[in-house]
């Protein structure tokens, strides 16, 4: 049981402030990127309007007013941040609804994919990692290490395509695209999520296996393991409680650290391949419709999510490791 740390509350508050600082940094960078681009949101919008044959000059005026493009840069920035905070995330003209609305209807698809994949990967990966470490140099270990190497190296988008090729096209077991008419909390939905979860989860599992194995091996060598055995504890308690509880500390940080790279990028691609209408896919569609607001917002949302997860991980780690102390 972790100890009561009186300084933990202050630490959390400090970290929260820091998180806000990072959030502002993210917003600033995104803002700069958008503004220094060769084409501005207005231009893209304009191109669309012109294509539809409407009167350009009127629309230009409206846009300038709407986006505040006639105002000085810093004022634009303040409006931008202010809008975001107030919940006005812009208008998606490719779908004719506020971006917020779009997000609300589609986030669940991304969430279910990422959530299921993470659970699958965590369970499988950690289990294999522990087994691999406890039976180091055995056949189990070699096979597990071999597969984890493959899992990390296989391009996940290709894996998705191959799975579709094999199971949907050749064998016909699954459909080649995601059917949104199926209710979310049904077995049929779970079935059609199998291939996407495998696609996204494979690289994650491989990573977790490697890290768990490494963390377990580090701790299996330690003295307290011998003490635990000398106390007459059954081996499964020695490994599962004493060793694992120590191994989990670096594991948490490493796992969360990987989130930005593998999970979000992978989910983006997986959604596109399988036609799952999550945030990744709608952002992708928005690109080809030149719908700036959606593209930018999805990037911001993922960045903020990562920020929050990092924060949570930091605090969890501090809470779990009794030796840490910041004050």
């Amino acid at each position, binding site marked *: 049981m972790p100890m009561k740390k009186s300084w933990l509350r202050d630490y959390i508050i400090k970290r929260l402030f820091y998180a806000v600082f990072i959030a502002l940094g993210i917003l600033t960078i995104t803002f700069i990127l958008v503004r220094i681009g060769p084409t501005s949101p207005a231009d893209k919008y304009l191109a669309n309007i012109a294509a539809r044959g409407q009167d350009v000059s009127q629309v230009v005026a409206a846009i300038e007013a709407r986006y505040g493009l006639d105002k000085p840069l810093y004022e634009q920035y303040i409006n931008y941040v202010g809008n975001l905070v107030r919940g006005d995330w812009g208008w998606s003209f490719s779908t004719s609804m506020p971006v917020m609305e779009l997000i609300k209807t589609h986030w669940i698809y991304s969430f279910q994919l990422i959530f299921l994949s993470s659970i699958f990967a965590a369970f499988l990966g950690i289990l294999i990692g522990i087994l691999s470490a406890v039976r180091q140099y055995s056949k189990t270990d070699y096979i597990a290490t071999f597969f984890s190497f493959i899992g990390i190296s296989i391009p996940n988008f290709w894996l998705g395509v191959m799975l579709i090729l094999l199971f949907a096209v050749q064998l016909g077991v699954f459909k080649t695209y995601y059917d949104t008419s199926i209710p979310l909390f049904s077995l049929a939905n779970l079935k059609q999520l199998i291939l996407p979860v495998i696609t996204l989860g494979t690289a994650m599992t491989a990573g977790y296996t490697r890290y768990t194995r*490494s963390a377990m091996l580090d701790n299996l060598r330690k003295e307290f393991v011998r003490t635990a055995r000398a106390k007459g504890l059954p081996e499964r308690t020695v490994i599962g409680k004493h060793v694992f509880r120590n191994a989990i500390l670096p594991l948490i940080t490493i796992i969360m650290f990987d989130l930005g790279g593998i999970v979000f990028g992978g989910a983006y691609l997986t959604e596109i391949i399988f036609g799952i209408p999550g945030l990744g896919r709608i952002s*992708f569609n928005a690109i080809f419709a030149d719908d700036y607001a959606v593209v930018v917002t999805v990037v911001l949302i993922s960045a903020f999510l990562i920020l929050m997860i990092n924060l949570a991980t930091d605090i969890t780690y501090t809470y779990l490791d009794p030796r840490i102390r910041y004050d």
Partner: protein
Amino acid sequence: MTSYVSRSLTRYYWERARRNRLAVGGLAFILFLILLALIGPFFTVDPTAANFEEKNMPPLGFTIEESVYDLETQQFTTKSITGMRQHPLGTDNKGRDLLAMIISGARISLLVGLFATGIAVALGTLIGTVSAYLGGWTDQILMRFTDIMMTFPFFLLFVLIVFIFGPSLLIIVLVIGLTGWTGTARLIRSETLSLRTREFVMASKALGASDSRIILAHLVPNVISLIIVIATLSIPGVILAEAALSFIGLGDPSVTSWGMVLRAGQQNLDIAWWVAVAPGIMLFLTVLAFNFMGDGLRDAFDPRSAV
């Protein structure tokens, strides 16, 4: 404890030897790839040359049944198409030779891998060493900036920037390079921090060497081995990133890269599966090769770091 060489130590050396075999294999593959990229184009046709007569041909040695609409009989008949030596890997639905496309893809991947990684590692090393060495406010600011950059999901950032600035190979290389330095910066920084307090640095300072001289002449050479390992292990991610971008359609349309081929392949999965299989295998093998080599290098430079 009694002094003995445990059997697990023996296994450890065996592991290293085995790893090195894989690392050597990886190196061999990469050299092969480089060779392919350099001289391949002289032996194959233009990868962009469309030839509708010969579309959807399977690789050499394969035969597929294709359903063809015969204009004369006004019906669908099945026709057997066998792979030709002219197109050893087959063709896609526009009749482009797959082998040529794969070779072109090899060039692109290696180029992007080289340059983007180069930029990322160089930038990361610079920021890492300067930050660690100068410390104080410089360190704080640089590290905060690194923290901010690291919070972005990398791939989405790529997509955003390509969206804003346009899908050209230059942009792709730049964006991957200019966003991928964060991990390197952190690692190099911590390594430099531990080096900074070593005697030879203090000796240099005592002799009056300037900061930049110390950084360039003393610190950087000591982190070279770390840099090499980081670079080798970063290349696969870079190659995959470019491939992923091309795959979803945000790649440079004027070049043929593996991602682009995969994209074409996915669209015709039912009638020409080989178009999707070939680039994937190449990507997979390339990534595997760099991973093996990177692991082998890491073991060679620091036997303590084993996974």
